[in-house]
């Protein structure tokens, strides 16, 4: 079984609740296709480093899971079709020897992710253009 992580950039108009639901839906897809989800986290809204379509900001979601690859195919199929999704990236992290051992490390990973992304607050990295600060349009 391989370990993968998928990061998704979705359109910014979602509430925190909606992005959590979205993460939940992705988790179900992985589990339906025989994968095991280790970590699913909503990373909050942040300003994009460049415009995608008309959006200058996006909702980031993160999913870490183990699968034989089927889950990746199905997940990416769904993401491709979903119009709310601006970008997604799946990376193979390594192979999972034992699900239990991997699970035991999850808290550590979550802490690291929280450290990198903060908790839901808006952070800007990269070029800070003089973009309108207000959301919408």
């Amino acid at each position, binding site marked *: 079984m391989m370990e993968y992580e998928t*990061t998704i*950039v979705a359109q910014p108009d979602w509430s925190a609740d909606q992005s959590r639901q979205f993460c939940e839906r992705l988790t179900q897809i992985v589990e339906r296709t025989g994968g095991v989800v280790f970590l699913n986290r909503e990373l909050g809204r942040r300003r*994009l*480093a*460049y*415009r*995608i379509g008309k959006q200058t900001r*996006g909702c*980031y979601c993160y999913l870490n899971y183990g699968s034989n690859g089927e889950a990746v195919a199905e997940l990416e199929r769904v993401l491709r079709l979903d119009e709310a999704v*601006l*970008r997604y*990236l799946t*990376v193979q992290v390594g192979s999972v020897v034992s699900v239990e051992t991997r699970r035991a490390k999850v808290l550590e990973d979550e802490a690291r*992710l929280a450290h*990198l*992304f903060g908790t839901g607050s808006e952070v800007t*990295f*990269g*070029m800070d*253009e003089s*973009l309108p600060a207000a959301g919408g349009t």
Partner: protein
Amino acid sequence: MRRFREEKDGKEKGKGKGKAAKRRPVTRRRACRLCADTKLILDYKDLRLLQQFISERGRIIPRRVSGNCAYHQRTVGLAVKRARLLALLPFTSMQH
């Protein structure tokens, strides 16, 4: 944080070829930071770390300047490109 040879780059090209050996600033090859500190894990999500390897315009700093070893420079390149794909880092500063 900025590398000192960065600004000079473009200007020195094509000038005084014959004296090139004399004019080259004496800089010690610095050790690869990522080799030196094994606790630094390069990850496309770690923007704080990645930003130390890109210029203000968002370009990847060459390893001749940053001092990275070949292996780590490739890792940096991969991580920066992944971060760009997710709009975490810019491709250029000229967009918008």
